[in-house]
């Protein structure tokens, strides 16, 4: 399978602040790859560099083995960007926003009309096509932002915190949309600080902390590293978690602690546990 995105030693400095400390990774074509980390970890900076919005201090990046910094227009044609901030033209209609995007990416009028119709129906926004964006709800705006990025049929889609600030039910609806996009063959790089989002959507996850990738694997492998089950114990110092290779062992420990008067909860290991293990802090 072709490598859609290859990043080698990417560094970004903002003055004296090092936002990225030489990160490297590869994304095979068709994969949904998530960068997971807290605010300020360097997720957005990575996406901004890969989409041509920010210049890197050092490092190289390739889309399908072609250097994106020496061929920026080639790279931009392949990439679609859903930024963290909803950067839609609020005073223009839904249709007009898609029209402008299509023209920006060199599409002819006929292709724009066909593609816009297809995507508006796909996202459930067809009935709103002539409404100004400022009249749409937050969830509709996010859906529009995603389909706008798909207008020119990008082979690589960058989603920067696509569901941040949305209600849980709208978030789940967007997850469905993102999964459908992936099944059409699009390679996706997603950043998020929602653990369950990375766990549900991603084929592989990179933990990004203070500008460094501290772990990279499938969600299952990252979690299995700690075991299968976890026991949370409430202590005067705070919540403490113990990990066990299987649920039976966790239950035995929980029983023992419970008899000793401790308050305990048994649950399965999640990505947050793995993140905490690798970085020493929560997302």
């Amino acid at each position, binding site marked *: 399978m072709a490598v859609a995105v290859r990043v080698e030693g990417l560094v970004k400095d*903002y003055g004296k602040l090092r936002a990225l400390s030489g990160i490297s990774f590869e994304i095979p074509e068709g994969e949904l790859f998530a960068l997971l980390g807290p605010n300020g970890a360097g997720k957005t900076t990575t996406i901004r560099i890969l*989409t*041509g*919005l*920010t*210049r890197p201090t050092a490092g190289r990046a390739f889309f399908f083995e072609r250097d994106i910094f020496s061929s*920026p*227009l*080639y790279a*931009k*044609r392949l*990439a679609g*960007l859903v*930024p963290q*901030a909803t*950067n*839609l*033209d*609020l*005073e*223009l209609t839904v249709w*007009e926003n898609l*029209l*402008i*995007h299509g*023209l*920006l*990416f*060199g*599409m002819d009028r006929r292709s724009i009309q066909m593609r816009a119709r297809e995507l508006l129906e796909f996202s459930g926004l067809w009935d709103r096509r002539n409404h*100004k964006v400022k009249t749409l709800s937050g969830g509709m705006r996010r859906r529009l932002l995603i389909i706008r990025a798909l207008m020119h049929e990008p082979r690589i889609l960058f989603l920067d915190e696509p569901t941040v600030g949305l209600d849980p039910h709208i978030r789940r609806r967007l997850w469905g949309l993102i999964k459908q996009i992936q099944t059409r063959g699009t390679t996706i790089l997603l950043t998020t600080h929602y653990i369950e989002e990375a766990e549900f959507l991603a084929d592989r996850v990179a933990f990004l902390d203070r500008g460094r990738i501290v772990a990279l694997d499938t969600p299952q492998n990252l979690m299995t590293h700690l075991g299968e089950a976890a026991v949370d114990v409430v202590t005067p110092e705070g919540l403490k978690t113990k990990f066990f290779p299987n649920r039976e062992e966790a239950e035995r420990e929980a029983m023992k602690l419970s008899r000793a008067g401790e308050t305990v909860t048994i649950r399965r290991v999640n990505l947050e546990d793995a993140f905490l293990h690798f970085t020493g802090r929560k997302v």
Partner: protein
Amino acid sequence: MRGFLAVYLRELLIIWHRLPRMLLSFSVSPTLYLVAFGFGLGKNLTVGERPYLEFLVPGVVAASSMMQGFGINVEINVARFYLRIFEEFQAAPISNWSYVLGEILGGVTRAFLSTFVILAITALAGIHLHFGPVFFLGVFLNAFVFASLGVTSAMLIRSHADQALVTNFIITPMVFLGGTFFPVEGLPAWARVPLKLLPLTHASHLIRSAAYGKPVPMVSLLILGALAFGGFFLAYRSVDRARD
């Protein structure tokens, strides 16, 4: 080419959606200038052998087209810092010149709209001047120069407050000193020389000569042409500076 069309079409669509309030707002300042300085103060004044109102109208056209051309900087600022649309342009496979030309022509279009509003008010007031191709060429060059400077300032200046400073210290004084309300030729030499360096002085001169049906002042035309070329180059170079 489609990149330029996209940027310009976006500006046209914004103008279209705001047209009624935009036309209304374009009419406020020129009407006030004409009423206060023309019908009020200057009703019985003459400049040369012409009524002051006939002197004033081309000046107000020059000042207004300058303001509307330069005003594209506010639109770009809003698009850049509030709506973040500028990132959509940066992430698109379009060249810097496509972006710059689209925005400049957006400013020029606004300038022409404000000019048409003034001409409509002028016609209603019964003032008759010559509005031929050179008159509109003067408006175009003037708007192009100041829209280029507007794009440049929007790319280089990173806050609304600093943008307002540029308007307050450079654009507003030029409105009053660039041959809009009084003939620069009537001033003593020490004042005349610096005012002749202002682009608006040449724009006023070119537009006024055309409105009077006089021969084209080639020096002013060439200076404005050169400034338009230089302004475009400045704007073009400033776009890369806007990327962090």
